[in-house]
């Protein structure tokens, strides 16, 4: 019996790779396994090799695996491109149609299943996905009725005839492979899962769900990879809550529309990736200057320019922290798990209203699109806090205006929404006085700058740092952000086996930088390695700039478009602890 296994399906884009994965993994989720998925895809719709990999485990996992146990291939290219990951003795399930061959020197068991033919015999080659999931499922010796139920739900709305055909395709795929293999593979028998109810979703869906729960009712956005799923989720859900999604003409319209809607009192967000974020910069300054709440999701992908639109990267940190001209207060938070994606949206909307600042929630492609198990979400933790929003205001006398930018002790002024009788005031991106009127007075300028910039003094968000520090003086402190946490933990387990102690901190509050909270951990570690998916060590630079310790901080960087693998992190950390270099 094994406790975990990795499975991958590859084929041409548009050939059913996605749907095979969906059916297969939904059924596994029902059985209570922990899943972690990774999508390798290209910036095109049809054609081009694509593959989906999932790791299946009886325990929580948050990283892809270094190797692969089962490869399902719709074409020879999928075998050739992915076989290097296959562990010795691994299994290839391939469509007999293309006459699959095991490349020279590879130790693998090949099952050639007439995937296309079985599907065509039942009416259409579209059902290849069902045959492939059935065959995979059968090899693992899992109960077929659970897979059947998932198929039924996928096709239920298309009527019983379609459901039946698809279930038949699953069964035929299962039967064929079992006959060839002589029954389920004994060495691939998974231990039973805990059966605990879990959710199975991508980060973008958790962001969408979190937004609805947070009271977001409008979204204005322009389609972009890998953010579009957020708008696609919300356009299905928001109308049920009286809201809507507007697909704007560009990202400038998206962000300024969101600013207008927030000004008028509705929690509104926009979501984009690097190119869109770049277009939004001037407007982010408007939000900061006018103290208008704003929530932006930046799902990072490979940059610069169009870069690697469908690949993993974490290279927008500097743009998010430093982008926009002039100086404004701004909050940047980085969820590190699916659960974070949900709870951080509630936090982001609250922070944006409590501090009246733009809040950027940064994910990366792997977190946004990797489908994974998620613990049940706790609705009781959802609290909406709108800060100093005032509903009732005393009437104004003569030409008096509401002091929307009143100088207060904490720098945060009462906020009133258009429509309120005693709330008239002006809003402008020009430097202004307490009622919002333009002012070039030097004294006023200083006061207003200090007011705005001082609002975030001492800010510490929920789990600003996620700390796993079992050792008082570890050999190594590993620092990361976003989706890399699980990979780092997998590497640490191996380091521990080698007798190397390590602590792990995930920085979730990127800006303002949580210097004070981080410093003791930097101090106590013998060496520090900062791991990030970019070429210029952007996170490490923040750590060094704010907290210091430059002499013991090293970087592990990866910017080839792929997420870190546990083995890479392990080897680099190990090498560093031995000779001091990476």
């Amino acid at each position, binding site marked *: 019996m094994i406790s975990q296994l990795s499975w991958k399906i590859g084929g041409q884009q548009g050939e059913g790779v996605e749907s095979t994965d969906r059916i297969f993994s939904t059924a596994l*989720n*029902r059985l209570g396994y922990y899943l972690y998925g990774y999508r390798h895809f290209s910036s095109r719709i049809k054609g081009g090799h694509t593959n989906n990999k999932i790791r299946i485990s009886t325990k929580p996992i948050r990283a892809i695996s270094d190797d692969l146990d089962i490869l399902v291939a719709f074409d020879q290219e999928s075998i050739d491109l992915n076989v290097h990951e296959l562990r010795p003795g691994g299994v290839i399930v391939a469509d007999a149609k293309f006459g699959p061959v095991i490349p020279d020197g590879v130790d693998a068991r090949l099952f050639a299943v007439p995937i296309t033919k079985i599907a065509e015999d039942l009416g259409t080659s579209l059902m290849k996905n069902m045959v492939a999931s059935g065959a995979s499922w059968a090899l693992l010796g899992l109960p077929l009725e659970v897979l059947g139920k998932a198929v039924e739900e996928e096709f239920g709305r298309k009527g019983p005839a379609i459901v039946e055909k698809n279930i038949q395709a699953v069964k035929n795929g299962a039967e064929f492979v079992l006959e060839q293999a002589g029954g389920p593979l004994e060495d691939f028998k998974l231990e039973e899962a805990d059966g605990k*109810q*879990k*959710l*199975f979703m991508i980060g973008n*869906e958790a962001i969408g*769900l979190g937004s*609805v*729960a947070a009271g977001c*009712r*409008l979204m*204005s956005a322009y389609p972009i990879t890998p953010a579009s799923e957020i708008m696609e989720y919300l356009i299905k*859900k928001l*109308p*049920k*809550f*009286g809201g*809507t999604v*507007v697909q*704007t*003409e*560009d990202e*400038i*319209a998206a962000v*300024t*529309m*969101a*600013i*207008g*809607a*927030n*000004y*008028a*009192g*509705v929690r*509104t967000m926009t979501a984009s990736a690097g190119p869109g974020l770049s277009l939004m910069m001037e407007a982010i*300054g*408007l939000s900061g200057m006018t103290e208008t709440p704003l929530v932006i999701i930046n799902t990072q992908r490979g940059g610069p320019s169009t870069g690697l639109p469908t690949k993993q990267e974490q290279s927008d940190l500097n743009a998010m922290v430093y982008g926009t001209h002039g100086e404004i207060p701004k909050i940047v938070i980085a969820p590190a798990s699916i659960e974070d994606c949900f709870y951080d949206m509630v936090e982001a909307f609250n922070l944006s209203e409590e501090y009246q600042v733009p809040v950027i929630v940064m994910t990366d492609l792997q977190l946004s699109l990797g489908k994974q198990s*998620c613990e*049940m*979400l706790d*609705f009781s933790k*959802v609290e*909406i806090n709108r800060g100093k929003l005032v509903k009732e205001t005393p009437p104004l006398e003569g*030409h008096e205006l509401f002091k929307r930018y009143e100088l207060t002790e904490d720098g945060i002024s009462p906020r009133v*929404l*258009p*429509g*309120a*009788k005693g*709330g*008239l005031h*002006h*809003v*402008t*991106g*020009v430097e202004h006085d307490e009622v919002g*009127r*333009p002012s070039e007075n030097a004294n006023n300028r200083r006061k207003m700058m200090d007011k705005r910039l001082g609002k975030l003094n001492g800010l510490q968000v929920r789990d600003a740092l996620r700390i796993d520090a079992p050792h008082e003086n570890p050999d190594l402190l590993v620092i990361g952000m976003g989706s890399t946490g699980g990979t780092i933990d997998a590497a640490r387990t191996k380091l521990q086996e080698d007798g190397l102690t390590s602590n792990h901190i995930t920085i979730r509050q990127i800006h303002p930088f949580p210097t004070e909270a981080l410093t003791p951990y930097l101090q106590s570690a013998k060496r520090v390695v900062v791991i990030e998916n970019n070429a210029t060590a952007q996170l490490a630079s923040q750590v060094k700039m704010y907290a210091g310790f430059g002499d013991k901080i090293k970087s592990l960087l990866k910017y080839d478009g792929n997420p870190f693998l546990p083995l890479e992190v392990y080897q680099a950390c190990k090498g560093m602890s031995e000779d001091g270099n990476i």
Partner: protein
Amino acid sequence: MATFKEFRNNVKPNWCPGCGDFSIQAAIQRAAANVGLEPEQLAVISGIGCSGRISGYINAYGLHGIHGRALPIAQGVKLANRELTVIASGGDGDGFAIGMGHTVHAIRRNLNITYIVMDNQIYGLTKGQTSPRSAEGFKTKSTPEGSIESTLSPLEIAMSAGATFVAQSFSSDLKGLTSLIEQGIKHEGFSLINVFSPCVTFNKINTYDWFKENIVSLDGFPDYDPSNRMAAMNKIMETNGLLTGLIYQNTTRKSYEDMITGFKSEGLANQELAITEEQFNQLVSEFK
């Protein structure tokens, strides 16, 4: 009920004496009072430029945003609270140069807002450069040998983008302009009102006298039918865009807000934000 005086504040505009924008400001104030608004029911969203300052000169809610983006901001305000009357305004540079993309799409989208362009055919605040509305051959600081680009026709663009309300006026015609703004506010959809607003400092060609000589009022055509799209397009082309009055109105197309599934007549901003646990559980169930 508020009078136009209640839409005045005590801020002295920084426009040059004689600027057409003064009358446009007055017309907005009069129209707001005439349609029965209270100051807090009106939000004026403006862009950047001399004209962009207008939101600060009207006693109402006002947002002076960034260059070229008055329309998306205004649309956001309207979506968030459709109970507000939303007027967007700015200059020809704001709406037809840097913000042209938004103008066309705001027209297509057809939210119930009124867009008043203060068109002086020049860049004033930056002290006299060419605008997309400048005439060919027009000499400015940025076109010392005369503009060699063709003049943009906002009316033709609006018509072809599917506008449901297109009007044009002249700042000297306070009465006509006020009436058009009232009609624009009452129109259930996006209304574009382009207003010739002479720049007395930098535009020595398109002066008050020049407009008086060259513009044609639709009042002179009693048979003109503003619901006829083709006739409207013809009239714009016939007059080379130098006409005033209500040029086109389509009263049959619903506004964007009225076409959104499940969008209530009560402003979203006035609705409850929190969802119930039951609703939450339902949302979560699809991920099981």
